[in-house]
């Protein structure tokens, strides 16, 4: 049975009421390595069946990873009991219920070779990485991972939709005996795009930059950020500003600001589920088809992401961003963010106008401080350098950034023409691979509050 068969069986197990079944089937393989040796290897084959039942406008949900008739009936019974208990506590609820689901648009998000989850491919990638690192007297750390996921949604109103996707990620951190480190990563639909040798070389080159580490006192500096660093900031913008539930409840950073200038005119940000270098997705956890959604155009805020629940609160439709049927507790999020590139041909060109500034490879432990201000904090990691007189000159002690994401985007001066899909690749809970497609950028007066070593 594929995921759609399971979804339809789950609907059949709940013979009455307004019901939606969301099914994911994960097959994944993840190899970890550290200190030039393999440390963990995890293969997962699991199914998640989520059933959502609406009774008198109230939602009840239940989930199982078993697909036999008895397990699906039990799951349906628990979901209905939950909805009935909710309905018994109050007057009619506000959930609009589930509509019939149309088949999804096709996309190029699946690669058959990657779906084989061949461990020897990963073993060879690790061996290449170790050889590269050892040749340079470095220690390599990182992951190589591939997955195939099936997604399906069916409702009691009829119809169903299905897609099968693959994703592949490799990241390498090289650490020199001095403790200096460098990072490189690659992500895409196909494992064939993960070139271990070049990734290890890029990470090694950063770890081996010569010179004593400079230190900058806390203050505001011009910054050049690589795509992974930009992607981290945009993910936090998703949490604080683009979340339709927070927006509808008056807590979002774009409340009363849609239609206003919130970033530099060069900023064009959209959720683009079919963009060439993203991980394509055809529909969300409620079966709503995904479509391109302009979020910030020429620096002007245009929209936030909604699921059915937040859309109903905002008296509008879902934009196809539900993470769970009925809506996740923290609300919907854009999972295919794409920031348009600019005119800079290279990172060197972005650095050229900087008299004295900071070059950031990536951030770590990014966290929201005050969501309504999009104020966040994060530390730089694995490749922080001092830019002087337009060139990357020498390593820099890591720094703590504490600044507003919209503030940084308002101070963007230029972006690179090329973009890259990047992700932390955390894969908590069931695998939901996503990343941000972004260029590198240069921004003025970014606030750093500490040097962190």
């Amino acid at each position: 049975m594929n995921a759609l068969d399971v979804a339809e069986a789950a609907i059949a197990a709940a013979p009455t009421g307004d019901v939606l079944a969301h099914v994911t089937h994960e097959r994944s393989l993840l190899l970890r390595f550290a200190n030039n040796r393999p440390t963990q290897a995890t293969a997962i084959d699991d199914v998640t069946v989520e059933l959502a039942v609406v009774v008198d406008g109230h939602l009840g949900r239940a989930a199982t990873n078993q697909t036999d008739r008895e397990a699906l009936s039990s799951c349906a019974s628990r979901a209905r009991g939950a909805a009935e208990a909710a309905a018994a506590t109050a007057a009619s609820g506000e959930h609009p219920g589930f509509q019939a689901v149309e088949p999804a648009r096709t996309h190029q998000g699946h690669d058959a070779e990657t779906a084989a989850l061949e461990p020897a491919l990963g073993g060879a990638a690790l061996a290449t990485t170790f050889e590269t690192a050892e040749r340079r007297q470095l220690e390599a750390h990182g992951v190589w991972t591939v997955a195939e996921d099936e997604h399906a949604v069916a409702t009691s109103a009829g119809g169903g939709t299905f897609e099968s996707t693959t994703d592949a990620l490799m990241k390498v951190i090289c650490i020199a005996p001095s403790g200096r480190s460098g990072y490189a990563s690659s992500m895409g639909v196909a494992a064939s795009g993960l070139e271990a040798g070049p990734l290890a070389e890029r990470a090694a080159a950063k770890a081996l930059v010569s010179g004593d580490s400079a230190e900058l006192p806390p203050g505001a500096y011009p910054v050049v950020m690589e795509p992974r660093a930009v992607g981290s900031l945009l993910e936090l913008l998703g949490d604080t500003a683009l979340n339709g539930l927070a927006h509808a409840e008056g807590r979002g950073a774009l409340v009363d600001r849609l239609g206003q200038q919130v970033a530099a005119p060069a900023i064009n940000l959209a959720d683009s589920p079919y963009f060439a270098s993203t991980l394509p997705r055809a529909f969300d956890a409620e079966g709503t088809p995904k479509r391109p959604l302009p979020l910030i155009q020429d620096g002007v805020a245009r929209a936030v992401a909604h699921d059915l629940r937040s859309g109903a609160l905002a008296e509008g439709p879902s934009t196809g961003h539900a993470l769970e049927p009925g809506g996740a507790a923290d609300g919907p999020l854009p999972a295919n963010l794409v920031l348009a590139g600019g005119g800079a041909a290279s990172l060197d060109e972005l650095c050229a106008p900087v008299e004295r500034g900071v070059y950031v490879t990536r951030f770590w432990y990014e966290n929201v401080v005050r969501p309504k201000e999009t104020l966040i904090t994060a530390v730089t990691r694995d490749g922080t350098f001092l830019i002087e007189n337009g060139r990357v000159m020498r390593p820099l002690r890591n720094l703590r950034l504490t600044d507003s994401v919209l503030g940084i985007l308002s101070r963007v001066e230029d972006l690179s023409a090329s973009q890259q899909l990047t992700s932390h690749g955390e894969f908590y809970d069931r695998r939901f691979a996503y990343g941000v497609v972004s260029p590198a950028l240069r921004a003025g007066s970014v606030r750093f509050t500490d040097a962190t070593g």
Partner: protein
Amino acid sequence: MRDLLRDLMDAAATRAEYADVRFVRTQSERLSTRNRAVDQVDSKVTEGIGIRVRVGGAWGFAAVRGTGKADAERALERALAIAATQPRSRGAALTEEPPAVGSYASPAEQDPFAVPLEDKLAILAGAEAALRSEPEVALTLARFQAVRVDKLFASTEGALCGQVLTECGGGVAAVAVSGDESHIRSFPTSHGDHMEQGGFERFVALDLPGEAPRVSAEAVALLRAPECPSGRTTLILAGEQVGVQIHESVGHAVELDRVLGWEASYAGTSFVPADAIGSLRFGSEHVNVTADATHPGGLGSYRWDDEGVEGHTVPIVREGVLTGFLSSRETAAEIGLERSGGCMRAEGFGRQPIVRMTNVSLEPGDAGTLADLIADVDSGLLIDTNRSWSIDDRRLHFQFEGEAGWEIENGELGRLVRNPSYAGVTPRFWAACDAVCSESEWHLHALLDCGKGEPGQMMHVSHGAAPARFRDVEVGVA
């Protein structure tokens, strides 16, 4: 199921240096109300088998849903194949451990899954009503959750044991909004509610309806409170924030896999060297930290960890000096320890065990009550309930912000201040600890969102802590 696990280990014994297998069934229930309406009524049941093998020093792990014999045998073959295709490894032998045998169930007076949904929702509705007395409150939340994990473990060394762990709890929160200001107050904690091992009685004891009026009133008061002043001052952290401080700057820093560099690709490493036991000064003589996998009610309590090591107590810091690590059989062997710390835990059946915190706690001091601690401060700041947290990948430089702060003047609490933040460097900060409240103020504080590992694993942990005082700390930094 016991026969299946035993058969799998018999089959693995001749093909791997070591193997273990876990069957895990996880049942969870989450209920919440939001802005006076029922929001979530969710339940989830998962079960499956995870098999871990070691071949040529390299680990292979395969997880499969369900309990079918054929699927489990395929998972064993997959784990062996994955281990065999990796580069050879020079991994140390595992520390010796007697095979775990027996059964255990954590205490629970009232089964939380047997209580009718309507009864739980009624308590949440009562809390919601009490949160709604303030007109500027934009969002109110009341939550209940319960988790039961039923697991069996077997190994090629003859272990075969089972345990059932039940957790229950909840929380409330209110968000007040005015213009660009937005403030949240939470009770009892901000990191995904407060839970303890136990039954429904743990949820009832929280008295959410009783605490709700204060929570919403403080959220609204923060809208008009002055900004936390910047500078260096004496800082008192309430117990929940002490728990987060322990978690981030002590607990993670002494995880031996991090110390050995094995988590560098994601969670990071540690400033603590592997040979630092007995020599590294972690803090002042008031700082005594213990990892205790046997503390009643703790979310890091169990009879056996997920590689069959009996849960026990490990002194981590004594009078400010490092005395131990959180470890596994493999990491302990790497640095020559005689025994694992018994800290291997896995989220569900689909993840392999990694070194995690048990109940890592700051031992109570002799400074009396929070009022006594405040009375001994001429000028300072009290911070309560964590709102934002960030620390570098070596667990050295941190920045935290609380939900609420109060100025302290001449031994008394003064004005409420908003956005109270502080920053520091781990050993310097703990060296500045000059008092910890006594046992009467010491409680377990839950943290339900401890993320680590690849693929990611979310773990529930508890930290015992009482309010503590730190001198000359930089505050008002964000």
